[in-house]
């Protein structure tokens, strides 16, 4: 990447999206941890209720209540249903009614079936956590967050999510909901950063470039692409040529000089693995340079760790904080 790195953490919201299987939750968690070194109140929120955060960070499942963690940021799991019930209780004094509706499963049907309803409810909750709290006087017990990092819907559903408040603002033309939707819309357009997580593979790269263009065409915030799981180059500078020239017999001989017994078959095996990795790295470079033409790119290394948990998230967060 050329030029200065864009600041990931200078907005109120950081929406992290990407296709399934690219490590979206891990990147979102790493962003939250890196941000919490610089900003006081940081929240990591998931929106799909799959308990991805709990599993990754080894913390109790957060539910619809903000919970502190030992990583410097709080966690929260947002569901459209809980957000709707909270909204009705907060603004329409429909606490009793909303309870009976919940029992009747009406809320499930509404959030499931009405286009964009789920999205606008989640967006509304993100607004509540940030701007609304910051401007509210009545809610001294609810402190606003400096930054909410959102483990957001996958790329395919990102655009409808970011545009849901615009769509609803056009449908509802008056009253408090209209004003609130206007604020949500401004929050999403003016005070939100978008991260698209990709892996250096053909399919992921093609889809990410499409998503960058779609965001640009829709006049939404320009995204930063985080390329996750980038294979580290197997050979340090200066020895690559020597490494590619190594013969199994040489390996056996050099190891024998250090009193390690081996055979040519085992040597050939490890040499092949290194050459394959080298080829892979070169292919990944091509994919990454293709991505870099469409958006600023930050790379995160593939980690050869015996497990993937809170410590590995910490390692990734150090790269992001740099």
């Amino acid at each position, binding site marked *: 990447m050329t030029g200065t790195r864009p600041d990931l953490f200078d907005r109120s919201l950081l929406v992290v999206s990407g*296709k*399934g*299987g*690219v490590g979206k939750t891990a990147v979102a968690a790493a962003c939250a941890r890196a941000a919490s070194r610089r900003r006081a109140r940081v929240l990591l929120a998931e929106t799909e209720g799959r308990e991805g955060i709990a*599993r990754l960070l080894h913390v109790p499942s957060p539910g619809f209540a903000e919970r502190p963690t030992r990583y410097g940021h709080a966690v929260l799991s947002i569901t459209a249903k809980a957000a709707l019930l909270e909204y*009705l209780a907060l603004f329409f004094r*429909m606490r009793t*009614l909303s309870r*009976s509706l919940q029992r*009747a*499963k*009406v809320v499930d*049907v*509404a959030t*499931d*079936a*009405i*286009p*964009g*309803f789920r999205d606008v409810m989640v967006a509304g909750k993100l607004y509540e956590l940030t701007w609304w709290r910051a401007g509210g006087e009545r809610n001294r017990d609810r402190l606003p967050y400096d930054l909410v990092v959102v483990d957001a819907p*996958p790329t395919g559903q990102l655009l*409808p999510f970011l545009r849901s408040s615009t769509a*609803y603002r056009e*449908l*509802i033309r008056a*009253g408090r909901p209209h004003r609130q939707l206007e604020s949500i819309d401004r929050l999403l357009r003016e005070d939100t950063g978008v991260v698209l997580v990709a892996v250096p593979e*053909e*399919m*992921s790269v*093609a889809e990410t470039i499409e998503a960058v263009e779609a965001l640009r065409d829709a006049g939404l915030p320009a995204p930063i692409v985080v390329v996750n799981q980038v294979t580290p180059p*197997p*050979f340090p500078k200066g*020895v*690559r040529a*020597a*490494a590619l020239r*190594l013969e199994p017999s040489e*390996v056996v001989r*050099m*190891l024998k000089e*250090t009193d*390690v017994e*081996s055979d040519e078959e*085992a040597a050939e*095996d*490890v*040499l*092949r*693995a*290194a050459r*394959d*990795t080298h*080829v*892979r790295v070169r*292919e990944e470079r091509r994919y990454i340079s293709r991505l870099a033409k469409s958006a600023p790119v930050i790379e995160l290394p593939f980690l*050869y*760790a*015996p*497990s*993937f948990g809170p410590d590995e998230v910490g390692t990734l967060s150090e790269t992001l904080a740099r």
Partner: protein
Amino acid sequence: MRVDGKRIVVVCGSGGVGKTTVSAAIALRLAEERERVTVLAVDPAKRLATALGLPKTPGERATIRVQGTRLEAQVLDTKRTFDELVERHAGSKESAQRIYDNRFYKRIADTLSGTHEYMAMERLYELATTEAWDGIVIDTPPTRSALSFLDAPKRMTDFLGGQMLRWLLWPYRKGGRMGLRGVSLGAQAFSKTLGRITGTELLSDLGQFLAAFEGMYDGFKQRAEAVLQLMRDPGTGFVVVTAPEGRSLEEAGHFVERLAEAGMHLMGVVVNRWRMAPALTVPEAVTAALAAGTPSERALAATLDLGRNLQALERRERAATEAFAGSTPEVPLTFVPQLPLDVHDVAGLSEIGGHVLP
């Protein structure tokens, strides 16, 4: 894994595990033994599609020829499949057109979860019942969870025939009967608020959409039943694809469980992109010493370090896979090694096919 005379092979799994590649590889293997084989792909990678000669436009068909074998490939067109389904059940051109024009219907695939999954099954049913194939391999849409795939037909008919939704939307239905029994004050108040929040236009669209579907509901329901029957047929087998990684294996476990509950036949689980680490182990002190030596020795040190890293990775993947195998001991596992590059040609597919169906 063995095909055992299955005519239909459904390939499923969570997103990004290589489902399309595995389905194409299985289809290629089947085509070596059978006359008429087709593979139905869903959203294939561009380079894979180009290399194989898959059709560029969804809904179209193409013939792939590989060294004397021949198979047909097609790419799922969700919208067109849904349109055809509507056309079949609508009764008249006018009522079909009313549905096509509905704003809600136009966005149904984006908004109603499970639509892609259901349409994939619908298309498969069409192929299986109206055309003479000796083998049909179907790739499935990347699902958020295993459950949404199997639940799709039921969700769809539940939604279209949903009492709850009708009850909620009755004020917005054209010609909705006044004084519908069972509409409580609470629902009316909620309906009103919902109208205030979502816009009455949208709800009235949805109401009209449901009204248009009213006459088709029974046909839809029967069809969904028939699709489920086909899925349960002993001639239909499921292959679950997974990556050797915790989250993906967990999803695979859900799949296996749900398939068994639903009385469907699992052929096996494919653990894709299995990374085999080189076995050579060298003490770290030795590599540290080599790392300070001649260029050749430094190169060897880097190579051995990579070997050690790959071994750590293999341990992580092996532990995850063994935990999975332990919890589902009766399920046959097939390992497909990671190839150095993404698969995007027939040679790569043949290699994978050889691992999946030896």
